[in-house]
């Protein structure tokens, strides 16, 4: 479904990687590894279309992602270093806006349920700036529960999470992969997957 051919990325004058080829089929977790500064985030941002690679092509379902544009972005969920939630809005409001922008009609009850599952019962109506780092991250991760996108691109999703949240996130990822979804993620810890395929990509060195 997701195929990358001869991808090359530079940051300024520094070559991060070149000649990168890989293909990921549905029901696969792609674990991108590499030392700090090896270009993991740049690769993930290129996959989303937030960064323009120097050369190479990224195809989604056989079509170049550049040409697919909005059709590709509908299938995509990106979780970056920044949580992408507004501190002055409550968790409910943040998720409602995110769902509307994704073009989904999500019932409020589904949003409450998602926040409950992610472990934020009692914090739904607080402005998210009052929450701790880990809780903010949980609000952002609740999007994973609500999203219908088949392709998840997660950049360091496990940082700042406690043990319970890490378990939950692993479960969410496993469920997504079991439903023939694709997860591309970077993390320095091992991800336990019970079903589906795990592929590893090593960047740099």
């Amino acid at each position: 479904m997701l195929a990358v051919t001869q991808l090359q990325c530079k940051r300024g004058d520094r070559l991060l990687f070149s000649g990168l080829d890989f293909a990921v089929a549905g029901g696969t977790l792609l674990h991108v590894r590499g030392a700090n500064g090896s270009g993991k985030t740049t690769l993930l941002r290129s996959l989303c279309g937030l960064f323009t690679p120097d050369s190479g092509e990224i195809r989604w379902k056989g079509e170049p992602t550049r040409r697919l544009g909005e059709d590709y972005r509908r299938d995509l969920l990106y979780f970056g270093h920044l949580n992408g939630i507004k501190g002055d809005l409550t968790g409910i409001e943040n998720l409602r806006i995110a769902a509307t922008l994704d073009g989904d009609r999500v019932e409020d009850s589904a949003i409450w349920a998602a926040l409950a599952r992610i472990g934020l019962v009692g914090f739904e109506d607080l402005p998210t700036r009052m929450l701790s780092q880990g809780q903010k991250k949980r609000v952002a991760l609740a999007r994973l529960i609500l999203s219908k996108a088949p392709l998840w691109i997660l950049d360091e999703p496990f940082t700042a999470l406690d043990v319970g949240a890490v378990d939950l996130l692993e479960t969410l990822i496993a469920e997504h992969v079991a439903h023939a979804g694709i997860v591309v993620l970077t993390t320095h810890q091992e991800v336990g997957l019970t079903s589906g395929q795990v592929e590893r990509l090593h960047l740099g060195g």
Partner: protein
Amino acid sequence: MLRVFWCVLLRDLTLALRRRTDVLTTLFFFIIVVSLFPLGVGTERQILQILGPGVVWVAALLASMLALERLFAADYEDGTLEQMVLTAQPLSLLVLAKITAHWLLTGLPLVLIAPLVGMQYHLSDDAILIMMLALLLGTPVLSLIGAIGAALTLGLRGGGILLSLLILPLYIPVLVYGAGAVTASGIDMADTRPYLALLGAFLVAALTFAPLASSAALKISIE
């Protein structure tokens, strides 16, 4: 489409309501700048009537600049802008919603306060009416053009000053015709029509191109 536009518009308005200081500073800045001139140049009726239109417009330009820097910066810092770029919606539509919110919060209050400000300059009722009309047509243009500059300077150090240098020259046509309309109303009300028509034309042109240009600039800035 409309649902998404509303969603972003309401989001920005809600955010502004929870941080009222940003909105109020713009309005008070406008009022204070306009009020300083009568204090500085004296209360001579004729001088004030000549100065009035220009001063009000220059103050409106500066006030609209004030909040521009924050138009995309806040969303850029917390990553929500990134998420907006990645949604399956045309970015220019989301940008237009953000610009609309910016105008409702910074432009529209200036239009509404204009009669009060005009009185300080002994402007006639006709002149005040024309000033409100001209501001109603002109301030959205300021927000629209300003958005392009805000998108281009996003994430730059010292972007605020660069933004002013970039955008203020582009505001000149609005200033000339906006202030011109008010001055012309002192001679003959019929003379103001071409000025207002031109301001309307600026608005239509800016509405067409500014969202596209700002979204293209945003995509570059986000890299």
